[in-house]
């Protein structure tokens, strides 16, 4: 599954190799899924959201983006889906400079990036099932495809028994998981999650993280924005720290856990290390 999407993304034309001759061959073969080159975003009021941010995220990675409130995390996410255009610098998704996309192509970009928003951004007039189905409807999926994929996605996040509920009948954690299900339902090669555990209790947070981890194991690149330091430390994944719009730390190595840790083992370890009681496995 993941391989197919990767090849889909590769179909977009890479930027001219002449720009980065040192990476020429590598660039041609597998451009990183996200690449930011000296990206600066200055808001109309003069507030600097990002300043000269350069980073690379390779396919299949699980990356945390941390930093205090107002450090530019959300700005960074918004530039990745072209909700905001950087003032300077380039944002490349799968090797393609997204500033060069015409307005008409922007929806195509957004369909290939699943995004989990801090404020969930669910459609209030649709029930759980239809919220997830909408992400498939926009890409013109057939009815049978929707009928097949939506229950899968809802099972993944543990909402299979709430399909008929409307967003305002769900708890915060459930809304967040619904948001994850919607972001993942068409199996995008890249999943961005902006504060997915923002105001949830530790146990629910672990549940969300477990879902994201499971998604990552299917080959999807996952970028998680958070200020939950404890969670980040326990997850032992790559951490990019932002402060005042700058990257101040990009810690890829360290105590990286083995990739073959199962989702269940992962959750058990997290609960243990964070001192959260192990409830019955809910997800």
């Amino acid at each position, binding site marked *: 599954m993941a391989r197919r999407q990767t090849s889909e993304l590769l179909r977009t034309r890479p930027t001219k190799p002449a720009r980065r001759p040192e990476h020429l061959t590598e660039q041609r073969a597998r451009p990183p899924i996200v690449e930011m080159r000296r990206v600066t975003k200055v808001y109309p009021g003069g507030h600097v959201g990002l300043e000269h941010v350069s980073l690379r995220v390779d396919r299949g990675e699980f990356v945390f983006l941390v930093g205090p409130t107002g450090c530019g995390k959300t700005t960074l996410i918004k530039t990745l889906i072209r909700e905001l255009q950087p003032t300077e610098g380039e944002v490349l998704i799968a090797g393609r400079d997204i500033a060069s996309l015409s307005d008409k192509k922007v*929806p195509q*970009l957004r369909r290939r990036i699943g995004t989990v928003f801090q404020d969930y*951004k669910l459609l209030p007039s649709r029930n759980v099932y239809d919220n997830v189905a*909408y992400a498939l409807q926009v890409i013109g999926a057939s009815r049978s495809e929707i009928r097949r994929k939506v229950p899968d996605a809802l099972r993944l996040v543990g909402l299979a028994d709430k399909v008929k509920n409307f967003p305002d009948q769900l708890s915060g954690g459930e809304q967040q998981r619904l948001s994850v299900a919607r972001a993942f339902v068409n199996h995008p090669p890249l999943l961005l999650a902006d504060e997915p555990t923002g105001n949830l209790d530790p146990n629910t947070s672990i549940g969300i993280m477990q879902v994201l981890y499971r998604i990552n194991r299917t080959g999807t690149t996952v970028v998680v924005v958070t200020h939950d330091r404890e969670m980040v430390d326990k997850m032992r994944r790559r951490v990019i720290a932002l402060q005042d719009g700058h990257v101040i730390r990009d810690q890829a190595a360290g105590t990286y856990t083995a990739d073959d840790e199962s989702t269940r083992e992962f959750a058990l370890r997290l609960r243990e290390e964070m001192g959260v009681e192990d409830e019955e496995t809910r997800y």
Partner: protein
Amino acid sequence: MGRVFFFIGEGMRALRRSAAPGLASIVTVCITVLLLGVLIPVLQTTNGKTNQVRDQVGLRIFINDVNGQQAPADQVDALKAKLAAIPHVKQVTFVSKDAALGILSQRLKQDNRQDITAQLPGSHNPLPASFSVAPDDLSNLPSIRAAITPPGANGQPAPISPLISDIGDSRDDASKISGATTAIRWVLGVVAALLLVASLLLVANTIRLSIYARRREVEVMRLVGATNWFIRWPFMAEGLVCGLIGAAIAIGFLFLGKQVIVDPLANNFNLINSGHTIGFANLALVLVCVAMGVSAMGSGLTLRRFLRI
């Protein structure tokens, strides 16, 4: 095809889930259509009536009697052909002495004064025969008049035929009527235009409010990767449905009004019973199309603001 049903379904879902803005649109459309439905026939009737009045104004050319009898038919026909050949003359009608007497006695009968014509001695008919000349437009009346009585050798106007005894001078009436009808047309036109603009703004504003209430939803759709048209179609479908329902209700009221108020009066009032008005079915069709078009377009255009990427 499946897409069409999907979009209509989406539009209906929005109406079901949040009925208040949809209801506001429906009521606004309904009121506007009612207004238009009353205004259009009224305008047409007024226009038709003023046209009728204008049509009645023309030249009346009186003809000399020959030996106390009506002039011979061949002379009359020759003069009629001459008159008809004058530019801007739309119609020339011959009114014989007998016909003139008939019209007079008819009029007196209406006033219950038929005794006046009854007093005429024997077969004596004092009324002259005449031509009534209708111009194609009221403003051309003076030029027609000039053509009938071109300046003669001595500089005085001389009639084109010795048969002509006199030309009925309705110049003052004509200019008065012309002025009055023009003024009426202008006033009605301005009122109609103002009402139309006001009602369009009303509909547009209601739609704008209902979409503004859902701008977050539109934003979410954009962020999930929906194309602009994918977002727009359901809103337009909703607009179409609102327009249809609103127009249908209004037409129901109009039909009721026509049956209960206008039709019973039509026999008594010449003004209402005018042949110039649009048929009810046509009127209904036009109104439904306009209402659906305006509310769908309004939805589509208002959305543009929220669809900027």
